[in-house]
């Protein structure tokens, strides 16, 4: 179950990310541009770990600096996808979308869409896809939506 430990670390970091982004945005004290200022420094922080950190690890491990074009393109697309999420949030808020509704659509929709695409692209062994797994995804998605919509102060 090592994968679960790493997943929970990623989950915790992702949960903290939302709180830190919000706090960083508020601390910028610029109602018109705080989101872009926060995004700029989030980008710097991400680069420090992802680009500099990975670069150092690859150099220390003596890795060959050759990257298959497919892996390189998909990696860049993954980075663009995650920052695209933040930009879409900003655009949706700017277009009068309520933050609670916009974020809860993501909380409910993303796990379902991700599971559907993942199962289609990487089909599980025949007979191993159980109804309890599908039910678990649905329960988690509905729960994520409810936690977001009915959070105190919303």
């Amino acid at each position, binding site marked *: 179950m090592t994968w679960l430990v*790493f997943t*929970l670390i990623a989950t915790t970091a992702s949960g903290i990310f939302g709180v830190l982004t919000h706090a960083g945005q508020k601390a910028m004290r610029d109602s018109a541009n705080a989101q872009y200022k*926060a995004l700029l420094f989030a980008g710097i922080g991400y680069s420090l*770990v992802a680009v500099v950190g990975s670069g150092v690890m690859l150099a220390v491990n003596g890795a060959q600096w050759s990257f298959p074009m497919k892996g390189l393109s998909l990696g860049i697309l*993954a*980075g663009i996808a995650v920052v695209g999420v933040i930009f879409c949030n900003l*655009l949706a808020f700017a277009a009068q979308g309520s933050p609670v509704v916009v974020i809860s659509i993501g909380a409910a929709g993303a796990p379902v869409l*991700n599971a559907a695409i993942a199962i289609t692209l990487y089909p599980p062994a025949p007979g191993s896809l159980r109804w309890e797994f599908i039910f*678990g995804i649905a329960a988690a998605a509905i729960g994520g939506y409810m936690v977001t919509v009915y959070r105190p102060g919303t």
Partner: protein
Amino acid sequence: MRRRRLLIFRRPWLLFSLIKVGALGIYGILLHASRIAMADPTQARYKTLFFAGVGYSLVAIVGSVLILRFKGIQWRFPIKGMVLATLAGVASATTALGILLAFEAQGTPAVVMTILFTGAQLINAVLSLAIDTPQAGGLRWQFLVGFQLVILGICMVAIYRPIM
């Protein structure tokens, strides 16, 4: 179909929200596919994280700088804001590294990302409650039911995950 299309165009925020769902939905799969395509059993996670960082930086740093320059803002940033936002970026990169390590340890995108998306909402809500504690009776029953549904869902996804 025609009516649905019109609804999305009348409410641009809904269109952006749906694009966001699409981006979130493919994020873990792109990381997984990139890691496999790197064809390097020992260094694939760092190679993937490196290029995810390049993609993120391209949009977050270059995009933000362009918007801020276009708006003609003053280049002054409060220290607290800079530190917190930079830490947010560090947390986001840690998320990506955690996902890649989970994939390496035989976690699959369907399972890992479901736990991540829903669990992150839960942790975010708990942290928000810790920072801004509600008054007695301020917690609605729907919030508590949602909380339990997330935990139940995560446990079921982890226990009944399909064999690849």
